[in-house]
């Protein structure tokens, strides 16, 4: 069953590449170049990536590669309270990583789901998993393969901000995309 999907995805990916190839020279190279141009600056805010999409020497009218260029550097997707709906630019971030994963079939990621600290700890494990699963589904649908993804939920146990206020809680409701080396340890993520 999964093989069939994978074949379909591969076909789709190939078609997509072909489609893009018809009027865009060397998309991979261009992507890498544009990403490294703003890799230094693009840490967590998205403005730089967006600006590069429209302008630049290799800028193009195609909308697929452009806005996602800076998204690859972002590896955190945020959620609203009690929700597993990917919000804001999370969908773009997911798309960027999905493309990368489909392009680099050796790449491996671990999706780490998290919640804010409120409520019952084990129920929060379930909520974090629900969010990680949402990101996993989105990745699969957009080119990644199941073998590339492992999923874990830390619930409320692994906050990035230990404060106890709305700001901190918003930062903790997240899924982190962690790139893994072949030995399973976290590795340098793509820029």
């Amino acid at each position, binding site marked *: 069953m999964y093989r069939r*999907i994978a074949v*379909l995805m591969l*076909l789709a990916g190939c*078609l*997509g590449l072909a489609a893009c190839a018809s009027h865009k020279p060397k998309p991979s190279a261009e992507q890498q170049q544009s990403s490294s141009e703003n890799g230094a600056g693009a840490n967590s805010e998205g403005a730089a990536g967006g600006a590069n999409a429209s302008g630049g020497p290799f800028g193009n009218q195609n909308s697929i590669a452009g806005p996602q260029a800076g998204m690859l550097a972002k590896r955190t997707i945020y959620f609203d309270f*009690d*929700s597993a*709906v990917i919000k804001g630019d999370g*969908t773009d971030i997911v798309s960027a990583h999905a493309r990368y994963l489909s392009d680099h079939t050796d790449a491996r990621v671990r999706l780490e789901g998290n919640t804010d600290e409120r409520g019952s700890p084990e129920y929060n494990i379930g909520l974090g998993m629900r969010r990680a699963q*949402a990101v996993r589904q989105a990745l699969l649908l957009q080119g990644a393969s199941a073998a590339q993804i492992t999923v874990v939920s830390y619930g409320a146990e692994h906050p990035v901000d230990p404060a106890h206020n709305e700001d901190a809680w918003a930062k903790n409701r997240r899924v982190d995309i962690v790139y893994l080396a072949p030995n399973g340890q976290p590795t340098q993520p793509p820029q």
Partner: protein
Amino acid sequence: MSVVLHGSLIALLALGWWHFRQTAPAPSLPINATVVDARTLKGLGTASRPSPQPKAPPRAQPQQPPPAPVEGPPPPTPDEIAMREQAAKEEAEHEALAEKAEQAREAQRKAAQAAAAEQAAQAQKAEEAQAAAEASKLAAAKKAAAKLAAKKKLAQERKLAEEKKLAAQQAAAERAARVADLQQSLREDEQASVASGALASWQSEITSRIQNAWIRPPTAQPGIKCVLNVGLVPGGSVTSVSIGDCNGDDAVRQSIQTAVYNAAPLPPPPDGIPFPRQLIITFQPTH
């Protein structure tokens, strides 16, 4: 060309998506952008269930009163005597009647013997006539006897009814006597028309002092009933506390004794009411 390729790409993606949905394992939640927001399901989660009424504690069944002693028959009343005399009279009358009939028969037999032969038929006729008369008289006498018997029965029934009436009157009389007795003793205690109100309020003051002093342990639940006999001296101090019937555990027993000592000294009773020497306290929590 690119349009065609893009179009087929989209078509393939759509196919893949559809296929994915068809062949995916029974989905957990469709955890993509189409997930049902939990907030929209608010209505399902707030149905309130009425809390069942707590059961009332079982009420003690009242004891059946012991059977009443049976009373002996009362002595005959004057009515009865009169009735008996009447009956005797009627009896005597009946006898007299019978005697008379006998005598008549004797006389006629003699007359018949005197005018024996010629008047045999006449005598016989007369005899027959007499016999008929006798028979009818006997019948009448029998009727009278039957009537008498019926009267006797009626008399007996009346007698029974009289007996019952008497018993009822006696019972009513005795009850009235008891009520009067109780009222008398109450009056003796109250000593005046206002005294009953003062007594009740003194009683409730003592009750609330003990209630406020009783630190109930968790094991003092409804169903617990403990009786304390408390010795008092004038001035309201407690001289002795002893536990009567009690189904509570040691913690309950400790708590009720402690409560009484802490409630002491008790306030003095209203004027005119002597200080009780003994307090009987029943601890019986209701909730």
